[in-house]
């Protein structure tokens, strides 16, 4: 089961999907494009746990984290 984690005012919202299900995968890809298009940054982790920013949807990613655009505080 793969997960897309979106940071939001509730802490985060998790979208779990079966990456072997073509329909679920398409939905996840659409969510990825919608979020990154809205300015969210998408990040995954390497096997060593290092974060990596990804600009294209990776259907093999087990976990993708999205956080809103960064601005000066």
């Amino acid at each position, binding site marked *: 089961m793969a997960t897309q984690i979106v940071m939001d005012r509730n802490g*985060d919202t998790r979208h779990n999907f079966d990456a072997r299900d073509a329909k679920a995968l398409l939905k996840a890809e659409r969510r990825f494009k919608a979020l990154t298009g809205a300015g969210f940054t998408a990040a995954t982790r390497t096997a060593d746990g290092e974060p990596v920013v990804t600009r294209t949807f990776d259907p093999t990613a087990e976990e993708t984290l999205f956080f809103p*655009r960064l*601005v000066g*505080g």
Partner: protein
Amino acid sequence: MKLLRKADDQLRRLLAACSRWALAFRDWYQRPSTIELRGRKLLREWLSPEQLAQYDAHSYFEVTGCHTGKRYRISHAVGANVYELDDAGWPRAGWCFVPNDHLVAGDVMLAQKIALETDERGALAVANNFAPR
């Protein structure tokens, strides 16, 4: 005299009870919300073992900027919480950059960590600079 002593004793008991009640109220009022706890959990999942140990011990952790190799300290807060460190580990400059939404501290800190570790220059380009205290 006996009556005064009894009144004094009762007053002390009342004050002790009030003090206990005040402490319990303070603990209840300052308890982290469910949202706050969720943010902390997510942060903990993404920290390296070294960062997690540092965070547990000091409520901050350090990251290395991907472009310059500089060290930054990210403290538990929702803003004005990123410090560039000098070679001795002392804060040399403060950097303020946050996600463009109202997020809890754990989420803010995680976004800052990922930004510095994957796009240090991009993060600092939008950040405001402040003098560390």
